[in-house]
């Protein structure tokens, strides 16, 4: 008992010092965002990502709002305008006007460095309280929650959150952004954050095209009965005149990788397809027959069709016969 107390003291002190350092280093870049939408005034958190006043917040704060007012840590107020918003990612990007020179901004972390149990700090404005740090750790990486699939893998962090913290940065202990907080879990005991690589994809689209450009290949995937070369993602069918069929893919192909993402199951396809950008060629590797074949496809722009949230009846279910996930869902 005495040993554990002696151990806990220095560890807690060290942790406290580190969290305080991250908070002090990053707090100048975190702002309160006020806006108006069709239901009235709203308030959330945002943070600068470059010295030009570009800031990120959650889609719920900025995606469908207007009359933005950014309250800087110095309590100075300035207006902002919406640059881009993406409901699939759950984020919005704003540009604050007349930002004082030298206003700090937060760099993005390298996604590869993230792992379960990585300590993280959220810095945000909960409700009408001042800027507040919250400490926790990465609890997992999830692709679905309560029967709904996400467009891309989300970070689940065991960081307590309150209302008003939507759009806040989730930081590693180096003060780099690993994600943007977009929702709470279970009454605020934990939260979901969109990872930095997804944020980078949206940022990249804006920089290059001025809009989000999700790519479309025209592939419908199902779960193969048996794993082939570590993958069960089988091409069920291909849309007529779609980029995938033009690239040479065939029904029955087993997907091994799309872009930089290795495919092991149909769920991985969701994650990989999020990063497709219309007009940018993407390498695809499949297993066909008894050999591995590389292809290169140029995703088309997604048509302006309606995408519906998978309803509860359309949740993939575990088959009673072989334990595989049944994925023939529309």
């Amino acid at each position, binding site marked *: 008992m005495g040993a554990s107390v002696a151990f806990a003291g220095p560890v807690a002190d060290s942790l406290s010092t580190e969290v305080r350092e991250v908070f002090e280093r990053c707090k100048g870049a975190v702002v309160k965002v006020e806006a108006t939408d*069709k239901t009235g005034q709203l308030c959330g958190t945002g943070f600068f990502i470059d010295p030009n006043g570009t800031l990120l917040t959650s*889609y719920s704060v900025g*995606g469908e709002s207007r*009359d933005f007012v950014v309250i800087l840590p110095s309590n100075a107020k300035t207006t902002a305008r919406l640059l881009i918003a993406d409901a699939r990612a759950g984020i919005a990007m704003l540009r604050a006007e007349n930002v004082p020179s030298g206003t700090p901004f937060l760099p993005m972390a390298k996604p590869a460095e993230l792992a379960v149990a990585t300590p993280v700090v959220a810095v945000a404005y909960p*409700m009408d309280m001042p800027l507040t740090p919250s400490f926790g750790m990465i609890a997992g990486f999830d692709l679905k929650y309560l029967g709904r699939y996400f*467009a891309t893998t989300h970070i689940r962090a065991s960081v307590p959150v309150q209302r008003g913290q939507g759009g806040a940065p989730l930081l590693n202990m180096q003060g780099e952004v690993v994600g943007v907080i977009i*929702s709470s879990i279970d009454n605020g005991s934990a939260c979901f954050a969109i990872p930095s690589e997804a944020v980078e994809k949206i940022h990249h689209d804006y920089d290059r095209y001025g809009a989000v450009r999700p790519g*479309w290949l025209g592939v419908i995937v199902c779960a193969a009965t048996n794993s082939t070369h570590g993958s069960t993602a089988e091409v069920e069918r291909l849309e007529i005149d779609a980029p995938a069929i033009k690239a040479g893919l065939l029904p029955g192909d087993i997907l091994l990788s799309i872009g930089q993402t290795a495919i092991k199951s149909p769920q991985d396809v969701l994650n990989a397809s999020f990063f497709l950008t219309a007009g940018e060629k993407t390498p695809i590797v499949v297993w066909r027959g008894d050999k591995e074949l590389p292809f290169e496809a140029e995703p088309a722009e997604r048509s302006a069709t309606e995408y519906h*949230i*998978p309803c509860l009846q359309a949740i993939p279910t575990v088959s009673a016969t072989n334990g595989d996930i049944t994925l023939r869902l529309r």
Partner: protein
Amino acid sequence: MPLDDQTLSTLLRLKRYEQPPPGYFEDFLREFQTRQRAELLRRPAWRIALDRLEAFFNQSFTLARFTYATASFAVLCVAGALTFNMLQHPGSSVRTSAEILAANAAHAQPAMQIASAPRATTINATLSPQIRIPDALLDSQLAPVADGHPRYILDTRPVSYEPPFSF
């Protein structure tokens, strides 16, 4: 056991001389009123108020009821007109920075309001793809906000979604 006539007459004679305790009839009215008041106090205040309101309107029968109905109708009309006006004119589309700052300064004392579900119904027309979330799947966050105070935003579910397994 049936009583014979003699036994019955004896009992009646005895009963004739039975009397209530002294002061019974004098205290009867006072005790009754005390119990009545005690019963009244056990009733909820709203019920008493309602009873008094009913009694008031019953006193001036026809004219009072007509006035009451007219007043209620007028209140409903005003509330309806205000709601319609707010829905039709949520705010001017173009505002200067000063106006925006002034408007937000007016809400310097924000109240708390749960933003509990994905707010998105339709993505801006400039976005691609255009995505529409079924309204039925949206819940309490679309509830009207009292007094125009801000909602402090943190969804309880991510807004992200995707039709499964086609890309």
